[in-house]
């Protein structure tokens, strides 16, 4: 076989292949692919920018108000958080997942009455509504070794051993909780307590 014979043999290929080869479709398809790629890139950049700006604004607001929240910490992580991350009140800008909704906090304390104890702390219902929480709203309070537990007579109960030395007998007690983190999860709102003051 010589090149010319090969060339002539190529001249009899199927019409369907020939039609497809010489149609302008590939160029259009390529153009479309390029456009989709560019559009996707723009969306990604725009999304990232908006998210970044919002995060920056939220962080700036919290810092300026003196409230430093630890964002994006999962429930289990928060429950087992060490003193290093929570006790020192240091500014922290952990990664935040898109599923988390950080409340725009105005106050950093809430009055609750304890409705039950669990491993990470206790659950409580909001006793006195404030700018952040409605009355009766269920909140999970997470406690750790750095949480200070106080009594109405200002007696310090640190460490609180997660139960304010009251165990389940404290169910129904009224407490004021100051907190460092507020996290919206699928199961509800969780706060990480800095101090828990029992006043009734």
């Amino acid at each position, binding site marked *: *076989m010589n090149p010319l014979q*090969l060339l002539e*043999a*190529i*001249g*009899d290929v*199927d019409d369907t292949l020939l039609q497809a080869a*010489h149609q302008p479709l590939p160029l259009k398809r390529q153009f479309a692919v*390029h456009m989709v790629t560019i559009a996707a890139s723009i969306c990604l950049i725009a999304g990232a920018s908006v998210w970044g700006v919002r995060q920056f604004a939220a962080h700036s607001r919290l810092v300026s108000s003196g409230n430093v929240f630890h964002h994006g910490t999962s429930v289990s992580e928060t429950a087992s958080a060490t003193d290093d991350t929570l006790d020192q009140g240091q500014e922290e800008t952990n990664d935040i997942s898109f599923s988390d909704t950080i409340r725009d906090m105005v106050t950093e304390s809430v009055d609750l009455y304890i409705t039950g104890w669990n491993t990470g702390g206790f659950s409580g219902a909001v006793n006195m509504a404030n700018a952040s929480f409605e009355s009766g709203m269920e909140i999970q309070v997470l406690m750790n070794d750095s949480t200070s537990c106080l009594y109405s007579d200002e007696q310090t109960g640190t460490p609180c051993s997660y139960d304010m030395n009251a165990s389940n007998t404290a169910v129904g007690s009224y407490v004021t909780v100051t907190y460092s983190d507020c996290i919206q999860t699928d199961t509800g709102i969780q706060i990480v307590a800095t101090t828990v003051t029992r006043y009734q």
Partner: protein
Amino acid sequence: MDDSAIVSLYWQRDESAITETAVKYGKYCFSIAYGVLGNVSDAEESVNDTYLDAWNAMPPSRPAVLSTFLGKITRRIAIDRWRKHNAEKRGGGQMDAILDELAECVSSGENVEQTVEQQMITDHINAFVRTLPDAEQRIFLCRYFYMDSIKDIAKRFGFSKSKVKSMTLRIRRKLRAFLEKEGWL
């Protein structure tokens, strides 16, 4: 006018069939002929011969795809014309470059038996082309059927010329391996 109407004109022996063909497929046929010959007047003559061939072929032929039917005629006529001229001197079309490229896929100038074996080669070429990814299929046929230049192919597909060159090189290596496997080399 759609293709079936043009074919009907041929079957009715209506000479306007040639006019309609020229209107719709004149540039298409010219680009193929020019790709082979690289000469405007030779290409135009090949296109005129294409119309005559088509007139003689229809009837009895009733092509399903008129464009490729005409393209194949044009290509064959242009190659024949190139073959005649080639005895004197080489032209300026894509033929010389393409034949040099295809020489990488075949070993020598030895001839195979005509007709039957030629058809067998074509069958294998069809099979080979179908094994290629879509983009390579198109590039292979644009280069070696339509005789498009590397520059035109690059423009058509939005690739760089070097990318097209590397793709055609890869395809030729595949073709050589395929032909060796099928016992043609």
